[in-house]
């Protein structure tokens, strides 16, 4: 029961942000409700999302010494079904390295509910904003790069949600 509630909350949150993205990015298709009446729009790549990306970061238990949590969900566009075992790559400028450095990169897999969670070093502001980077770049679905921004550099967690469409 708890799982169901959590799922619904996540679905609502992801749906809301995806809807906003959808309206902004695809104004025209947003006006065609019939095709997407109960459909979840795919997440668009954020500008600057792919900056300092290193393809093929290893799947790790934790990036560096940890202390900061990056989490989120991965679901399928349209029906919103959670996608299990999807590889999400994560990197950021942290207390243990700059964005482009290999030790700042790592990857994790989503669980059966499409959720992922990876511990990493504390993110600190770089280029004027405390932000992280996430990538889905495994081929089965269309590649998506996200660049979520923390409300404050003092926060110790950050979330990002993917809605993927077939490649």
């Amino acid at each position: 029961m708890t799982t169901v509630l959590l799922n619904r909350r996540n679905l609502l949150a992801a749906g809301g942000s995806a809807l906003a993205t959808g309206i902004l990015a695809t104004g025209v298709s947003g006006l065609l409700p019939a095709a997407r009446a109960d459909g979840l729009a795919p997440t668009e790549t954020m500008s600057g999302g792919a900056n300092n990306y290193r393809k093929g970061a290893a799947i790790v238990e934790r990036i560096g010494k940890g202390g900061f949590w990056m989490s989120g969900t991965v679901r399928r566009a349209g029906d919103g079904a959670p996608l299990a075992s999807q590889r999400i790559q994560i990197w950021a400028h942290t207390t243990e390295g700059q964005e482009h450095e290999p030790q700042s990169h790592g990857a994790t897999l989503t669980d059966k509910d499409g959720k992922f969670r990876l511990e990493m070093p504390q993110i600190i502001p770089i280029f004027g904003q405390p932000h992280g980077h996430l990538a889905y770049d495994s081929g089965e679905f269309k590649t998506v790069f996200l660049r979520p921004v923390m409300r404050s550099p003092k926060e110790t967690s950050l979330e990002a949600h993917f809605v993927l469409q077939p490649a």
Partner: protein
Amino acid sequence: MKGWRSAPLIWVALALAIGVPIAAAATSEQLAWRGPLYILAGFAGIVALGLVLAQPLLIGGYLPGLSAYRGRRAHRWIGGALALAVVIHVAGLWITSPPDMIDALTYTSPTPFSPFGVTAMWAIFIVAVLAALRRRLGLRLRTWRIVHIPLAIVIVAGSVAHCLLIEGTMETISKAVLCVLILVATVKVMIDLQVWRKRRTLRGESVARQ
């Protein structure tokens, strides 16, 4: 006499307005996580902001002890230093993270402060190049002012918006105070020199035109 007595006070205020933000930034804990080039680039930006404050004060003749002629000369030199500081700022950030700098320069950056900074940068470069070539281009003082004053407004507004929106090494209050002083000095010089008037003999114009 009055001018002489208040002289040190204004200079001290100017030194504090520029020096305190730099000193505060030097104590930022974020420096620990940055490389030397990134640190240099950041401080070049802070110094540039400080130089922006000096410019209206110099051209308005608000700094006692400086004649109008020397004030204008200093204004030109500091303008050159400002352009140089911006070059160091941009070059250092480019080397630190090329894709982020390219996004900024192409106005495709996700960070809201970038377009303000890049716009101010181009305005600074245009003013610097035109100032260097003013004689050669035969620009009359009136023409020069018509070009320079709007660009000066772009530089001030762009620089202030740029730095206020950044979460970086600068301490919030000293940064805000510096920005307010820049805006006040700029508005004051615009009013005092009545920049909106078309025909007016600028203080010491004959010297400037020779």
